[in-house]
């Protein structure tokens, strides 16, 4: 008798919170989808531009990507189901916009990747270092991560050619796996290694010139 009653009680208890949760989700859904675009810009624009510009340093491009994000968000507002917060939802849209931007650049470069002209600025036709590009030893005193160094590092990262920068940023800022990057940018792994190789050569060279020998 007691056991049966308990079981019944459990069922009731188990049922009620679910109902409450459903109505709460519906409430929040309504709350967030009813927000006006004015609120989006005030609440999220600065966060989005900071995220975008770290990945696409050209200010006007970054701003366009943010604007595009808000427009897409407005147009697809009805499909927002509240599975993620409104903020995360906007970030997801921005991420896919940035990826599309990267993809456009890699498509343009796909043909150029096969010839390795670029590497000629570091190596001769036999694959040996050019005399003025020989890596120099760096003083350990200067191998510090202070603010000044990080500023130079950031400038050097931004100075990379766009596709190299995209690959380097996805790898080290977004910490994505090589396989994921290849899949998302739709490039084969040998192309990835050409880009990663060039990015490291250029970044190393830039740091040497602007920090270690400065």
């Amino acid at each position, binding site marked *: 008798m007691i056991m049966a009653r308990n079981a019944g009680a459990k069922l009731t208890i188990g049922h009620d919170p679910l109902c409450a949760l459903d109505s709460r989700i519906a409430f929040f859904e309504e709350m967030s989808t009813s927000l006006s*675009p*004015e609120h*989006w*810009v*005030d609440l999220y*624009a*600065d966060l989005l*531009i*900071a995220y975008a*510009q*770290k990945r696409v340093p050209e*200010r006007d491009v970054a*701003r366009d990507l*943010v*604007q595009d994000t*808000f*427009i897409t968000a*407005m*147009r697809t507002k009805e499909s927002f189901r509240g599975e993620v917060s409104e903020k995360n939802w906007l970030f997801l849209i921005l991420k896919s916009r940035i990826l599309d931007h990267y993809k456009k650049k890699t498509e343009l470069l796909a043909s150029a990747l096969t010839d390795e002209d670029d*590497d000629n600025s*570091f*190596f001769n036709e*036999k*694959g*040996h*270092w050019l005399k003025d590009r*020989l*890596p*120099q*030893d*760096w003083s350990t005193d200067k*191998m510090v*991560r202070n603010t000044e160094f*990080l*500023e130079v*590092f*950031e400038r050097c*990262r931004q100075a990379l050619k766009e596709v190299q920068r995209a690959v380097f940023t996805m*790898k*080290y*800022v977004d*910490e994505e796996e*090589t396989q994921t990057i290849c899949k998302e940018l739709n490039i084969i792994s040998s192309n990835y*290694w050409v880009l*990663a*190789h060039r990015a*490291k*050569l250029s*970044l*190393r060279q830039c*740091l040497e010139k602007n920090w270690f020998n400065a």
Partner: protein
Amino acid sequence: MMNCKEATKASVRRHEGDALTIAERIQLVIHHMVCIYCRTFDRQIAWIQSIGSSSNQDVEPLSAEEKESLKHSLSNL
């Protein structure tokens, strides 16, 4: 025998966790024994990699005008 271009590329792959073949590994070790420059490169990119994302760039927030123009473009949808 690996040249410097190939050796630096193998370095990059190794430091990013790509599996080198046994032949590539042996060739890279031999190359590093005779080439101080590629050895230096190898050591330095490992360090560069460890910095990767720790740089903290200050991004200028959007100006009032930029925000207004954003709002304007949204209200016209």
